[in-house]
């Protein structure tokens, strides 16, 4: 029995030689290995709105426009379109954009194109596919989160309403094929198909930012055949679980609880026609300053993509993921908090990591985190007039962002002076917000001027009581918020943490029953409008459900915002932004905290890696050197066998005297 067990153990050990998690056959292939922490929620391009969704989507589907991979500030380049369209005003306030789609682009092969029959399994991309996708955004059944933005297209919202009405009122309409439903409820006045490859979009009013939305997965053309076929019934997948796109990669395996595999799409126009030298199918020849020194222009002018496959493995726990990265089994990695100090020293890679050939890629994300005041609150908000303003200014002066970043984020972030992060027009490196450097002296002075000397509320004779509302009940969350509360306590204020469930917090926000909150915003697109609109009156959370959670309402700010938002980047626009910044500086609806900084570790064998905070099809630009990787992996992962032998020896030594005495007794 004992021998059998030992044999089995040996068998298992032998079968499992080494820690390589991949089949040996893949060692020489051009495969990129990356971990993913959370599975995508949906792969429906018109619905997906999380970074995890977009990471996959932007490589499998394509958009009419894309961002230049290297240049910063971000710049639009043609994707599926032949050129970045110019706005054409119609004179009555409406604006037209014409998209000429590249002829000869094909969708990846998929059985849905055959629609039950033996037809062809792929087809060419048409302008009608882009129109279909835009119409899906308005379809209430699809549930796209961005209908508010695309409702700027003339008649799109009305189309969605007609569709819903027909589905309800007309028997059998809901059972029609989806393209027939859209044809019956259409057309949309603001979407005109001019010829098989050209399409015009009519906006009811100028909105130059619309072009950025045509670089987001929401505008990825999807074939109606796939949307009709993958309905989640009778064993078919739901449309959010498949991907039928035109992109450089196609979804080869989608097991989102463990493994997602993308493989090179042979039908991609860039792969079939490298001679077109299409901007989105060629590695850029120019980059941002410093890119050439970092080796990012080595592949300049070469046809994309370089990788044969991208293997994504689910890694919920950061430490095993990081260990596998250190073993060479992932090509890039985030740095877990626990390992930060041994990895990074004073913002640079530690010498031991550098000797392994790794690189550290730092980039400030286009995002801002802030503490907000509810401006309709009678104590901290606008009703308190000058007292409220001075209270907010004092509270702003008490928060030391550098300390916060050091304690909670290993310093991964830069203190924010205004809502606009670096890399976005309107960010000015030299600008210092006078209320954003800690100054307790001045804060106490302001607090006294506000009528709360030493933090004491004269009405009660006790420290002024305020509430910090949050929907985050985690321990980490509590620790973070306690940092702010402690800071305000130093002024004598008594701020209480009201941590409730997320849903309770949401209903408090809807009802306007909150005072102070912690919030963040990640750019949809690289334009100051996408940050400054967070404080525009029309976006007020409590009045219109918009993202202006501070309920800030300032007519002067609104007027400046209106004049700024449709302007070209230039001196005039900058002037408006500066004026808005001055209002925010004085009024303090926000205490701007930080712009997070992403630290990515990359192995020496990985090329063409440039971090980006937006949905960019990054994998077609990236490459690996499999030979170098294989060599490093085998050097780093020689198993240490002696403990097994030592353990076996110790066991024998332990049992031997007992066995001998037993044998003696028997004899």
């Amino acid at each position, binding site marked *: 029995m004992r021998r059998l067990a030992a044999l089995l153990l040996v068998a298992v050990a032998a079968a499992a030689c080494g820690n390589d*998690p991949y089949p040996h056959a893949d060692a020489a292939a051009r495969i990129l290995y990356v971990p993913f922490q959370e599975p995508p*929620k949906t792969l429906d391009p018109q619905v997906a709105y999380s970074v995890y969704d977009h990471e996959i989507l932007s490589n499998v589907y394509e958009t009419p426009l894309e961002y230049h991979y290297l240049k910063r500030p971000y710049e639009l380049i043609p994707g599926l379109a032949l050129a970045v369209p110019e706005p054409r005003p119609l004179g009555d306030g409406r604006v037209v954009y014409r998209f000429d789609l590249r002829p000869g682009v094909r969708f990846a092969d998929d059985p849905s194109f055959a629609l039950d029959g033996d037809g062809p399994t792929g087809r060419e991309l048409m302008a009608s596919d882009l129109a279909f996708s835009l119409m899906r955004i308005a379809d209430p059944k699809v549930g796209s989160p961005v209908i508010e933005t695309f409702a700027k297209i003339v008649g799109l919202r009305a189309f969605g309403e007609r569709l819903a009405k027909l589905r309800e009122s007309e028997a059998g309409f809901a059972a029609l094929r989806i393209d027939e439903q859209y044809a019956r409820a259409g057309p949309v006045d603001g979407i005109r198909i001019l010829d098989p490859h050209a399409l015009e979009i009519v906006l009811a009013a100028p909105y130059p930012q619309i072009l950025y939305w045509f670089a987001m997965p929401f505008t990825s053309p999807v074939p109606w055949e796939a949307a009709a076929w993958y309905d989640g019934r009778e064993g078919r997948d739901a449309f959010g679980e498949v991907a039928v796109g035109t992109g450089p990669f196609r979804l080869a395996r989608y097991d989102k609880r463990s493994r997602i595999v993308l493989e090179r799409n042979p039908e991609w126009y860039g792969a079939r026609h490298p001679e077109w030298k299409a901007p989105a199918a060629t590695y850029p020849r120019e980059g941002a300053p410093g890119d050439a020194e970092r080796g990012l222009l080595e592949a300049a002018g070469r046809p994309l993509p370089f990788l044969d496959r991208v293997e994504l493995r689910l890694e919920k726990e950061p430490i095993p993921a990081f260990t596998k990265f250190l073993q060479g089994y992932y090509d890039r990695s985030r740095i877990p908090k626990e390992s930060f100090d041994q990895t990074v020293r004073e913002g640079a890679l530690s010498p031991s990591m550098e000797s392994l050939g790794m690189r550290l890629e730092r980039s400030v994300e286009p995002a801002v985190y802030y503490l907000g005041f509810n401006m309709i609150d009678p104590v901290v908000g606008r009703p308190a007039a000058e007292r409220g303003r001075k209270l907010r200014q004092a509270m702003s002066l008490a928060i030391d962002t550098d300390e916060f970043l050091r304690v909670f984020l290993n310093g991964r972030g830069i203190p924010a002076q205004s809502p606009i992060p670096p890399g976005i027009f309107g960010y000015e490196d030299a600008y210092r917000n006078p209320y954003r450097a800690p100054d307790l002296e001045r804060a106490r002075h302001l607090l006294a001027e506000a009528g709360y000397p030493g933090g004491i509320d004269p009405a009660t004779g006790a420290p002024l009581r305020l509430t910090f509302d949050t929907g985050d009940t985690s321990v980490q969350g509590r620790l973070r918020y306690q940092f702010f509360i402690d800071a305000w306590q130093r002024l004598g204020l008594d701020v209480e943490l009201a941590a409730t469930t997320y849903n309770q917090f949401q209903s408090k926000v809807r009802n306007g029953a909150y005072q102070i909150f912690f919030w963040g915003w990640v750019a949809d697109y690289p334009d100051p409008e996408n940050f400054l609109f967070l404080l525009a009156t029309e976006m007020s959370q409590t009045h219109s459900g918009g993202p202006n959670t501070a309920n800030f309402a300032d007519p002067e700010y609104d007027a400046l915002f209106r004049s700024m938002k449709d302007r070209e980047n230039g001196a005039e626009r900058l002037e408006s932004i500066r004026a808005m910044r001055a209002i925010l500086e004085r009024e303090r609806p926000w205490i701007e905290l930080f712009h997070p900084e992403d630290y990515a570790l990359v192995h020496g064998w990985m090329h063409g890696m440039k971090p980006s905070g937006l949905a960019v099809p990054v994998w077609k630009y990236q490459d690996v050197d499999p030979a170098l990787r294989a060599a490093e992996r085998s050097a780093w992962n020689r198993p240490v066998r002696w403990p097994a032998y030592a353990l076996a020896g110790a066991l024998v030594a332990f049992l031997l005297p007992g066995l001998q005495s037993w044998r003696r007794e028997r004899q």
Partner: protein
Amino acid sequence: MGRWLLRRTAWGAATVLGVLLFLFLLFFVYAKPQDVARRALGEKASPEVIAQWLANHGYDKPAFWNPSRPLDTMLAEHYRRMLSFDFGRSDADDVPIAKRLRRGVGPSLSLTVPLFLLGLPLALALALGAAFFRDTYIDRVGVVACVLAMSVSMLIYILAGQYLIGRLLRWFPISGFDPDPAVIARFVALPVLVGLLGSIGSEVRFYRAVFVEETGRDYVRTARAKGAGDGRVMARHVLPNAAIPILTNAVMEIPFLFTGAILLESFFGIPGLGSITVDAINANDFATLRVMVYLGALLFVAGQIATDVAYTIADPRVRLE
């Protein structure tokens, strides 16, 4: 036996129906489907999208009582779905739950079956050995080692195993899973080893106690008097007579091979049924969670009946009346 089986099954069914009622109250009355919807759809979802979602999942019906159509309630739907094994779609991402379960069974079994098939004989062998050498230093040190092994939390074994064996010694991948036959053993080896270490202590100690008790019995003395050797006494006489407690322990484990090992699966990233349960808890995915609890209850009841039946096979003296 037939009547006994019938009665036992009826009791089991009543238990499962009760569990289902409890699940309904907990997941669909105490926790509001509206909250689940908001969680699944994100904060930017409009009221229409939420209403559509609730309708798609059948959560827009009255909970208990529908005067116009008495059977068109969430409760009736809940029982109908569960009893007909029509599990519907996940609340978190709309994937059919049955499909998810089918995908999860393989990874779970590839972990739990080796764990069971290696663990039981190993524990029995070690326990027999300890009983055989009882009152020698081998037995005493063995018992101390068992007590030490069973007092350490499984979590410590997992983390220490990953660090020592996965990271420092580099024998196996630190975590992960791949059903590819070329690599599956590599992934399963470490969790199986860790699982064995974590469970073997208590099992060996338990079986050893059983064996020690048996070796003191009269039939053992008789066998020895007849000249049976030590090995033969242990293997042919003690082991079969200790079968009842062994069966109680072992047969009860078999149904749960299918539900997976929650801790091992979630720490080693094995996409089995155990980690489906954990994910469902994290995502407020009550549609999936109720299925997991329901299946667990079914398997538990089935396991109990199977244990009782196994007694009659192992020991002719046991009669089920």
